[in-house]
């Protein structure tokens, strides 16, 4: 990776670079190698040596990013998670856009593809084993149909992995990412009063956004390939996590919470779709031993730092 001989492809393309995670990844990588960010949003506070292509993945222009032939790796973070976006737009963005990207990765002999999926693809279920391995079926859509396109992205990446053995494909499935990111888990913990389900206190795993970045960097190392669950500090009961956060909680019976959430959702008073309740009801934890053994990944942030990261 260090060799900088002329014409050696070292360029890294980062999709979704303008998200909070994308910017963090770009900032870590741009000191060592050329980084091209692809995102249709504006890149606030962009370092000068990062090239930003302001475009939609579905556009033909995406091809220009690859045409020079010096792209060595692609990091795909540009997955849409907006539960309010219409299903068709969601699907077209996540699946079609990713399909185009895969086409170019194969066509222009990109050596490495890193896809950021999520442990949510397994889905919280009453019959889940305590720790899901990478071989577990992706049942996340069974109770929460809106995330089916995220599962589809994961599956597309898997079939790409098998069809193109010359590309080192890495699929990362991190647990709930906490930090300044705007995802359901972090937003939930930023609520002034955090609702819980009366009589349920599942074990949960969380990960600091900086640890996700280091997992992505680890995935770039030569020869790393395959699917990896990525977890942060050791699991803890949800109640313990909330105690660390020190925010007041509001226990609600599930039978009341479900219709209430449906109502709030339809009135646009909450950004949490009702099926998200399963995450504070059932376990959805992963076995991350493969990432530790093969990628040499280790989380650097302990439970308290990780939980408190949502307040940064």
């Amino acid at each position, binding site marked *: 990776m260090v060799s900088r001989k002329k014409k050696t492809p070292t360029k890294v393309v980062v999709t979704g670079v303008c998200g909070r995670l994308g910017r963090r990844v770009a900032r870590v990588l741009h000191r060592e190698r050329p980084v091209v960010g692809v995102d249709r949003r504006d890149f606030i506070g962009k370092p000068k040596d990062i090239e930003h292509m302001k475009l939609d993945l579905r556009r033909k222009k995406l091809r220009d990013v690859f045409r020079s032939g010096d792209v060595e790796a692609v990091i795909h973070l540009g997955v849409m998670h907006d539960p309010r976006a219409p299903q068709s737009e969601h699907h077209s963005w996540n699946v079609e856009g990713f399909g185009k990207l895969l086409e170019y990765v194969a066509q222009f002999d990109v050596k490495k593809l890193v896809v950021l999926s999520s442990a949510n693809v397994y889905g919280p279920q*009453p019959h889940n*084993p305590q*720790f899901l391995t990478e071989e577990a079926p992706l049942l996340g859509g069974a109770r929460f149909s809106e995330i089916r396109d995220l599962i589809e992205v994961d599956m597309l990446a898997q079939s790409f992995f098998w069809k193109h053995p010359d590309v080192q494909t890495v699929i990362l499935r991190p647990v709930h990412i906490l930090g300044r990111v705007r995802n359901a888990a972090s937003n939930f913990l930023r609520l002034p009063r955090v609702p819980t*389900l009366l009589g349920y206190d599942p*074990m949960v795993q969380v990960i600091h956004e900086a640890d996700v970045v280091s997992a992505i960097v680890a995935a770039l190392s030569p020869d790393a390939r395959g699917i990896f669950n990525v977890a942060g500090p*050791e*699991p*803890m009961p949800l109640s313990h996590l909330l105690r660390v956060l020190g925010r007041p909680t509001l226990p609600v019976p599930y039978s009341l919470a479900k219709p209430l959430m449906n109502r709030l959702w339809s009135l646009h008073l909450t950004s949490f779709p009702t099926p998200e309740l399963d995450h504070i009801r059932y376990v959805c934890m992963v076995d991350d031993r493969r990432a530790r053994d093969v990628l040499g990944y280790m989380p650097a942030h302990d439970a308290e730092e990780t939980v408190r990261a949502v307040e940064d």
Partner: protein
Amino acid sequence: MLGEEFEDRLSRVPLNLGQSGVDPFGLDPQWTKYVLAATAYLHRRYFRTEVFGARNVPAGRVLLISNHSGQVPIDGAMIGAAMFMDVEPPRFTRAMVEKWSQTLPFVSLLFSRVGQVVGVPENARRLLEEDEALLVFPEGSRGISKTFDKRYQLSDFGLGFMRLAIETNTPIVPVAVIGGEEQYVSLANIESLAKVLRMPAFPIMPQLLIPGGQLPLPTKYRIHFGEPMHFEGDADDDDSVIEEKVWAVRQTVQSMVNRGLRDRKHVFW
């Protein structure tokens, strides 16, 4: 009444706790303590359990394979109490619970905090890899809902535990529980009604009509731990090969039960 001995034993239980004070499966020693205190009371005072062969239980990973009886799984609780009160070093016994129990508020929470895990093979494998003591009733719900005329006759064993034992190289300790079959006398099991009510069984128990008969009869419990059995081979072997090994365990448990029945002086003392 349990006093110092109880506290002393509690401090010697091998645990795998994280910073949050619970283990990876959610077991919390603070919760487990109270549940164990209650079962230990039943164990010592109500059922006056006599434990034989406690020394046969090795330290480290172990699979306890027991006969199942009594309509209500008190036998599991009594084995758990014996593993804590009579075995060295004292252990928290892990058992597997039905998947649907996870949908119940408070119940799922209690099960998790006292170390009971969802009944899937991945969980069993992980617990054994972490050197826990795992209790399995291979008869399943067929065993617990036996009618009185079938008492102490083992029904068919499932094969899963044997594959697990071979795969994780875990010794099997056969366990015979005597006294459970008489705690609730079931004259019949109406399966069609059980199916309609989605219950594992619908036993007919006349004693429930007598005031106080809802409590189990205070039979004397006797728990026999047999010598550890070791099995080798391929965990993915054909059912027929595994069945033979399972049969050996089943025969051992059955003969321990038979011997225990022959040796006991009376059902109640």
